[in-house]
């Protein structure tokens, strides 16, 4: 056999060589492509976290946003925030739905024609701002000029808002903070101290609550829930006892060890009745009280004269033996505390604060403290101002809304569309298709909370001073602007003193200026762990302060990275100090029973005081479920699913009625009833509640408007129309019939 390659061998080897080179190249290319794809995979699914601030209510909880590839997918509490401590309520989490809301405004718009169904047309920012500025400039000279409405947020953005509108000559009105309505003014009236009341629920051993929704959304929702949990089981060996006085079976009443069903207008009588028993049975320290209160004798005399257990029992329906027992229980535990709903009547708040003085709860662990602040400026209540506009007593040329909070308030105007009829031009800054946008002529949509810069003063609940601070957590999704830029653009377009009042160009400027101020304050710290916060508190109590960073710039960076700033120092003796001036405590002098004389107008006393109308025998009390009480977006489907639970009525309004009435109407589970007042009628689901007072029903109020977002439209009813022309009254008289 010859060793020379044959023709066949040549073809095989050369073919193999060509195939090898070709396939090798293809293989290399294929591998290269796989490498590229793998590199792409490595850059996908990247998880990051950003801090921000929840703005669904005024509590200002710090939040932590989980982002995957820069897109937010989950919101949790910021573990370093002293308010949230890593936890969050349902509303706070639903802010994620606000960011992605399919019904968010895409950009600025103006109404095509007034009257009829609302129709808008997109407008470039420049034109929208020019239109708004022109109307504002023209309105400046008119009698009632400009009315501007916003939720009472505090902080640099709110100050900028105030400065611009004051310079424009506008009248400002606010949806008030929870403590600002009654608690703070009445505490000042009682003690002379200019301070927010701080209730130390967590360390109390016994809480007597007059309608305070402690387990729902009281003062600062997440703080209240955590306080409740720790009050119950903070220390393994002891458990706090809760007694709830409530007109309805609220979530707090459900959690209480004892629920006493007492209508809101009768609760002050019960509180004074308990105080009267304390005096009768010598369970108060008269010597101590006499040293601080100038009118102790008169107070005692009034109580013992009018608020005998027998009188109070006949007024409230609470048995004498129960009143006696409650008074005795109150002073039999080491750290009792009496709390009250933030919006309760003056009479009830006065009675509750007085009870706290009598039981020695002032400036005591597990008691009531004051947290000092500068005196708050007098502020107009937005709901009252809007009622004046709706009823023609106030005739502004321009009405401006920062948000829809005032239009959702229980005491607000029942028919927002009348505002548009009365006012020639309405401007809305809300980024949502909500009640304000529905009546607006021009919409200048601001960023949603996840897109915003934040620096705000939260609603008072903690002893510590807290300012949550954050940069935008996510990219802006739509054609919106931050509030600072919007105000700047408006101010420049208006010109003159308004432009001169505007020293910033964006919200970032405002927030960075605030952070700079904090850096030079020589107190407090960026958000740190609980342990470090307590250590700082110890230091500051001793007159020391530890600088958190080497430079102001580094300090600012730490504040922004951690989500805020806290000064944990707390003067726990502020109320005592205020009283030390000598007999400066002034007890309210309650008037004689019956309740019509002692309860304030806004508590439902209206219905009780009016002569009974046989057509409408039921007093209907309104309440807002915690998950529905938001000043931000109301188009949040996850929250609508929570309504009416655990009674099984999600996605709907419901009315709670007592067993006697339910029996009479034949109400079983999921029965629909019709509520009829002198002004309107409404069909809702009825829920039977054992122990509810006879002659009283409670109706849920949920933001839901035909003009709002797709989910909000599914609720689609505004039950406040039952109240007709008296929206400030909490109760109205109705007839209930089974459908």
């Amino acid at each position, binding site marked *: 056999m010859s060793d020379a390659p044959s023709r066949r061998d040549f073809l095989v080897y050369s073919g193999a060589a060509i195939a090898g080179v070709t396939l090798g190249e293809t293989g290399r290319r294929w591998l290269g492509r796989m490498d590229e794809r793998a590199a792409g995979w490595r850059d996908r*699914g990247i998880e990051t976290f950003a801090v921000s601030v929840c703005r669904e209510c005024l509590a200002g909880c710090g939040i932590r946003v989980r982002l*995957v590839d820069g*897109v937010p*997918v*989950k*919101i*949790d*509490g910021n573990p370093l925030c002293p308010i949230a401590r*890593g*936890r*969050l*309520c*349902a509303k706070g*989490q*639903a802010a*994620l*739905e606000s*960011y*992605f*809301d*399919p019904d*968010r405004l895409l950009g600025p718009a103006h109404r095509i024609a007034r009257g009829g169904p609302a129709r808008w047309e997109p407008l470039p920012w420049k034109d929208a701002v020019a239109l708004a500025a022109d109307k504002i400039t023209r309105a400046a000279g008119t009698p009632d000029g400009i009315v501007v409405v916003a939720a009472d947020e505090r902080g640099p953005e709110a100050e900028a808002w105030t400065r611009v509108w004051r310079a424009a000559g506008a009248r400002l009105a606010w949806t008030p903070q929870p403590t600002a309505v009654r608690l703070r003014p009445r505490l000042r009236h009682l003690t002379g101290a200019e301070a927010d009341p701080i209730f130390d629920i967590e360390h109390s051993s016994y809480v007597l609550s007059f309608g305070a929704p402690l*387990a*729902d959304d009281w003062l600062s*929702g*997440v703080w209240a*829930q*955590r306080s*409740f*949990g*720790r009050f*119950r*089981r903070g220390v393994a060996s002891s*458990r706090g006892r809760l007694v709830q006085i409530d007109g309805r*079976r609220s*979530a*707090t009443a*459900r*959690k209480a*060890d*004892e*629920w006493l069903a007492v209508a809101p207008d009768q609760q002050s009588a019960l509180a004074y009745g308990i105080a009267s028993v304390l005096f009768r049975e010598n369970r108060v320290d008269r010597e101590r009280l006499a040293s601080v209160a100038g009118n102790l004798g008169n107070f005692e005399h009034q109580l013992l004269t009018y608020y005998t257990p027998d009188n109070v029992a006949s007024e409230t329906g609470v048995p004498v033996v129960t009143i006696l027992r409650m008074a005795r229980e109150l002073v039999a535990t080491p750290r009792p505390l009496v709390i009250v709903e933030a919006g309760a009547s003056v009479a009830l708040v006065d009675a509750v604060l007085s009870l706290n003085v009598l039981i020695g709860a002032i400036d005591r662990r597990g008691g009531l403290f004051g947290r000092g602040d500068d005196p708050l400026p007098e502020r107009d209540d937005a709901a009252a101002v809007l009622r004046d506009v709706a009823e023609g007593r106030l005739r502004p040329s321009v009405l401006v809304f920062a948000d829809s909070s005032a239009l959702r308030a229980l005491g607000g105007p029942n028919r927002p569309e009348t505002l548009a009829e009365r006012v020639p031009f309405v401007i809305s800054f809300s980024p949502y298709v909500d009640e304000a946008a529905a009546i607006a002529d021009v919409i200048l949509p601001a960023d949603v909370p996840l897109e915003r810069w934040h620096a705000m003063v939260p609603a008072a609940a903690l002893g510590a001073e807290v300012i949550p601070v954050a940069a935008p957590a996510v990219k802006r999704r739509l054609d919106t602007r931050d509030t600072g830029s919007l105000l700047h653009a408006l101010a420049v377009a208006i010109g003159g003193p308004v432009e001169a009042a505007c020293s910033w160009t964006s919200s970032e400027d405002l927030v960075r200026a605030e952070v700079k101020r904090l850096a030079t304050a020589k107190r407090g710290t960026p958000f740190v762990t609980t342990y470090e916060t307590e250590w700082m508190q110890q230091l500051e109590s001793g007159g020391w302060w530890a600088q958190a960073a080497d430079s102001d710039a580094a300090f600012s960076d730490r504040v922004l990275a951690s989500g805020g700033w806290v000064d944990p120092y707390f003067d726990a003796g502020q109320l005592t100090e205020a009283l030390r001036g000598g007999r400066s405590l002034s007890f309210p002098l309650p008037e004689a029973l019956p309740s019509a004389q002692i309860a304030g107008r806004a508590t439902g006393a209206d219905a009780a005081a009016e002569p009974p109308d046989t057509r409408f025998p039921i007093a209907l009390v309104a309440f807002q479920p*915690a*998950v529905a009480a938001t000043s931000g977006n109301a188009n949040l*489907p*996850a929250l609508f*699913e*929570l309504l009416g*639970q*655990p*009674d*099984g009525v*999600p*996605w*709907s309004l419901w009315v709670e009625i007592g067993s006697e009435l339910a029996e009479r109407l034949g109400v079983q589970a999921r029965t629909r009833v019709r509520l009829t007042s002198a002004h309107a009628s409404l069909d809702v689901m009825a829920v039977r509640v*054992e*122990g509810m007072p006879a002659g009283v029903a409670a109706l849920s109020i949920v933001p839901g408007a035909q003009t709002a977002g*797709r*989910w909000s439209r*599914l609720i689609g009813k505004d039950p406040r129309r039952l109240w007709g022309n008296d929206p400030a009254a909490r109760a109205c008289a109705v007839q209930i019939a089974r459908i």
Partner: protein
Amino acid sequence: MSRWGLVIDLDRCTGCQACVVACKHENNLPFSTPETADVGRLMTWIQLVAADLPGRPMPSSLPLMCQQCDRPPCTDVCPTSATYLNPEGIVAQIYPRCIGCRYCTNACPYAVKIFNWTEPEWPESMAGMRNPDVSARPKGVVEKCTFCHHRLIAARERARVAGRELAPEDYVPACVQICPAEAMTFGDLSDPHSDVAALASGPRAFRWMEELGTQPKVVYLREGE
């Protein structure tokens, strides 16, 4: 081997439903409508139910999710082994195996297994908010609480990369993480030193419908003294 369990202190729980929303967002549960809610087809893996508990003057609010039974009636009846008790005590659900017979939903005494009557849908703008760690379940299969099992997988991977053992704080379901009242405690029941084991064997501990012998690993602590 860990044996995961959850303790819910009803004395602390306020019924705020923060856990319900946390679960919804974490596990990509689609939104309902009034119509679907009306016919009892809310897609929630945790729901608040009214429960008459001894010693309480009125019905309590009980957060109810899959009880992760040690003797689960649902697994016994599954013809395709789509649902089974995994070695760590989690009642798992393999969606591609599920044929939608709903035997398990009928067998579950807690009524916490949910059938997908429709394809899960979100408005277009909301597609981005879905958690990429959790797949959406198609129409025709049964789903339920998994103790956020995807979090366990991720935590275990992170621990492996870091070259250490899984620590108790590494793995926490979304509901436990969010609870504002600090009412939920999660952990390894087989670790006698864990908080969850101590609470689950305490005097206030009880299992919901424990008389059925399902041996749940969700343990409630009763309200009251």
